């Protein structure tokens, strides 16, 4: 008998009289000790499925049909109080966002202690305070938090993202559940930290004999943590099967597209971008940036965001700047854009130093930026046409010519002309990012800074946005400075890459060079942490020892 057996589950949401069918005949089975992944793109219904299992659907949702069995017992016929008692004891959930899952005013110990206290009450166990504390220490040790006493007494803000994610896992493991539901664990973390978390989850599942339901959009993560895969699309399970079968021989177009959209790290599908041989457009010579943090009644503190960086970006190049959070890559981009002055060193554009230009600001015809999150980079109260009009107006275009130019720009980014009248909330994420690219193009820049332009998008959308960027570059002769932490994407999209660690560039070269033969141990650690989808890629990734990995973990610094 399967541990969890969902048959033809139907769920609909009703908001203000409008009914949306979000799950259609979803069937899913998880056996004892099985690792199952539920994959699909944004809005495909993965999280709704897990919420239905946990009985945490929002008020306006209704289960309209189907059955859900937990160890043979129909969950939908079980009263809410008994289902409540299953939570945390029989099944536990690890959430996506490790910070917002904690209340900042309580210590970690208090969070864990409360959960344990109530779980004990529900299951009628009697345990003293000291016993509970000892149990919590045990669980914290289990998730490889070396110093449980200190973690116990810490406030959530005092821990790094990776440590918080570990605590969340500890929270889920507290009562030895039979099944763990992991909803995009590690997605909000850096690659190296994510890698650690996934390894930990895998180890725990093996040691404790847990069943795992992994919900994710990242197929590399699926390969690492699951044996059986369900693929969801628009509220339906379109395909399911053992991991290897799904990855190597997908039956549906949707699944095939999903797999093909993933940029390969190694192998025959990898693409090399042509290297530009032209003169440098932007040149950084020994550039440093120091921020001064002033404290009240304490000496101020110097933070070195960027240290002695020298770079050249030839015309027509796609230079990738890779690194994890806090490595200084965005600071470099802001200095190149002239949005921020350098503390030391010289930045020149076409041989003219930025500092010599009018108020040190770069000519907007030179550089524009595309932001990471299209949701916040477009003004929600302005239509697409109004947004695109701004750069045109200030580039002193004739009002009549503007309308035509807006149409032209929309066509350039493959959007129909009637989109001009739309507001951002009427567009999908990929469409919004296209508008943001059109806005950058409107100023006719020569350099475009791409600040993780696809990290908020689904893989298939990312693939098309990247194709658009490549096309624009060859047609308009643009130069890109591409900032990202996604190494597999950079492998295929960049003509040169530079790896940053703690404000310094530790390695640079063409992607082919860097990925085949790493000079710096950090580069090795970074590449080896990238989740990949084939055995070939896995085999060709650089091998890194546990020690080397630990050395560069951002999380262990905290």
């Amino acid at each position, binding site marked *: 008998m399967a541990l969890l057996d969902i048959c033809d589950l139907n769920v609909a949401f009703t908001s203000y009289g409008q009914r949306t069918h979000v799950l259609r005949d979803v069937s899913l089975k998880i056996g004892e000790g099985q690792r199952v992944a539920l994959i699909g793109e944004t809005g495909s219904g993965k999280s709704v499925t897990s919420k239905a299992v946990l009985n945490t659907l929002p008020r306006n949702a209704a289960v309209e049909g189907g059955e859900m069995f937990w160890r043979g017992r129909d969950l939908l016929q079980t009263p809410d109080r008994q289902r409540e008692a299953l939570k945390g004891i029989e099944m536990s959930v690890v959430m996506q966002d490790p910070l917002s899952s904690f209340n900042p005013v309580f210590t970690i110990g208090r969070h864990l202690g409360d959960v344990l206290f109530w779980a004990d009450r529900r299951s009628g166990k009697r345990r003293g305070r000291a016993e509970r504390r000892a149990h919590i220490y045990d669980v914290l040790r289990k998730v490889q938090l070396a110093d449980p006493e200190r973690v116990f007494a810490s406030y959530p803000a005092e821990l790094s993202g990776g440590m918080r994610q570990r605590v969340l896992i500890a929270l889920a493991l507290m009562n030895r559940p039979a099944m763990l539901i992991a909803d995009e664990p590690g997605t909000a973390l850096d690659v190296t930290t994510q890698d650690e978390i996934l390894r930990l989850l895998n180890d725990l599942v093996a040691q404790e004999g847990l069943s795992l339901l992994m919900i994710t959009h990242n197929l590399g993560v699926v390969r690492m943590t699951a044996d059986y895969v369900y693929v969801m699309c628009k509220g339906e399970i379109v395909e399911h099967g053992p991991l290897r079968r799904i990855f190597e021989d997908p039956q549906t177009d949707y699944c095939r597209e999903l797999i093909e959209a993933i940029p390969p790290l190694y192998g025959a599908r990898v693409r090399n971008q042509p290297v530009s041989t032209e003169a440098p457009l932007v040149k950084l010579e020994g550039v440093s940036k120091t921020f001064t943090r002033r404290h009240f009644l304490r000496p101020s503190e110097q933070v070195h965001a960027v240290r002695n960086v020298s770079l050249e970006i030839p015309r027509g190049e796609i230079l990738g700047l890779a690194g994890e959070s806090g490595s200084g890559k965005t600071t470099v981009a802001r200095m190149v854009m002239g949005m921020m002055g350098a503390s030391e060193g010289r930045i020149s554009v076409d041989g003219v130093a930025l500092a010599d230009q009018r108020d040190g600001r770069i000519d907007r015809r030179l550089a524009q930026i595309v932001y990471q999150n299209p949701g916040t980079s477009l003004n929600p109260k302005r239509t697409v046409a109004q947004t695109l009009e*701004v750069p045109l107006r200030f580039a002193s275009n004739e009002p009549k010519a503007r309308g035509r130019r807006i149409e032209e720009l929309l066509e350039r980014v493959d959007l129909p002309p009637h989109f001009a009248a739309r507001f951002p909330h009427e567009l999908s994420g990929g469409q919004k990012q296209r508008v943001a690219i059109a806005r950058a193009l409107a100023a006719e820049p020569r350099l475009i800074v791409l600040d993780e332009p696809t990290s908020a998008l689904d893989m298939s959308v990312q693939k098309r946005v990247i194709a658009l960027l490549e096309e624009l570059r060859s047609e308009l002769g643009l130069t890109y400075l591409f900032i990202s932490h996604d190494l597999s994407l950079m492998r295929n999209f960049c003509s040169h890459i530079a790896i940053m660690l703690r404000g310094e560039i530790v390695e640079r070269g063409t992607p082919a060079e860097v990925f085949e033969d790493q000079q710096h141990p950090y580069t090795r650690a970074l590449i080896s942490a990238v989740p990949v989808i084939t055995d070939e890629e896995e085999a060709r990734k650089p091998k890194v020892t546990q020690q080397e990995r630990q050395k560069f973990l951002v999380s262990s610094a905290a």
Partner: protein
Amino acid sequence: MASLGETAISPEILTARRMAWLRFRSNPVALLGAFMVLSVVFCALFAPFIAPYPEDAGNMIDFATRHSAPSAEHWAGTDKVGRDILSRVIFGFQVSLLLVVGVLGLAVPVGAALGLAAGYFGGWTEFLITGFTNVMLAIPPLVMALAVGSVLSQTLVNAMFAIALLWWTWHARLVYRVAKSVAAEDFVEAARLAGASHMHILLREILPNCVAVISVKTTLDAAFVILFGATLSFLGLGVRPPTPDLGSMVADGRQFLPEMWWGVLFPALGIFYATLAFNLLGDGLRDMFDVEV
């Protein structure tokens, strides 16, 4: 191609604006508030046609009917010179609404402009504006109004000025807070990089994102202005007799308590009704726009 993620959003998906309207419509309290506000405005606009004794709004004296209790002829009774109280309450809404329009018409644009500037420019502008706002907030409004009222002559316009002089501070604070967070958004930086002027950014990029908050706050404020205006005229600093005014009617009626209770009760109910109307509407708008004020 379009089978994955990037499909166009279908028209039946709710737009934010339609969502807001649906939220408002499904909120009975908000609808009640809107209806009450409309009724107050209607009374004020058409007072001469609605009031049973429109001539009583002026300097009418009819000693024959003075101090008569509520009856079929005078539903709310009459005052010390025999004027119909119901008619005067209906006319009283005119003064209350004029005061609201005057005060908020002055205070909201001034407060919003200062708040926007402080939130967007930061630095010294922010320091000076927030500093000045805080100083103004430290002045007790009633004392300020009493001072202005006793220095200048007692007119509706002066009362308006006295209230507006301090009222803008609340709007400045609120808009400052919202503008500061909006100014940190990527789209503001993108507009600046596109070469937009400060004026453009302030009025076209940031202000539209503050409109919801400003309108909710303004509606809620209307209630307080009515209350505050009534307080001032109760203290004798509002409009001059014989113009019908709810606050001064309460003050007049007070001398004849408790026997002639209707002289106080009905004008007070008028104040209560108008204040409640704007409060309910404001709460409804707050839920509709989903903002905090």
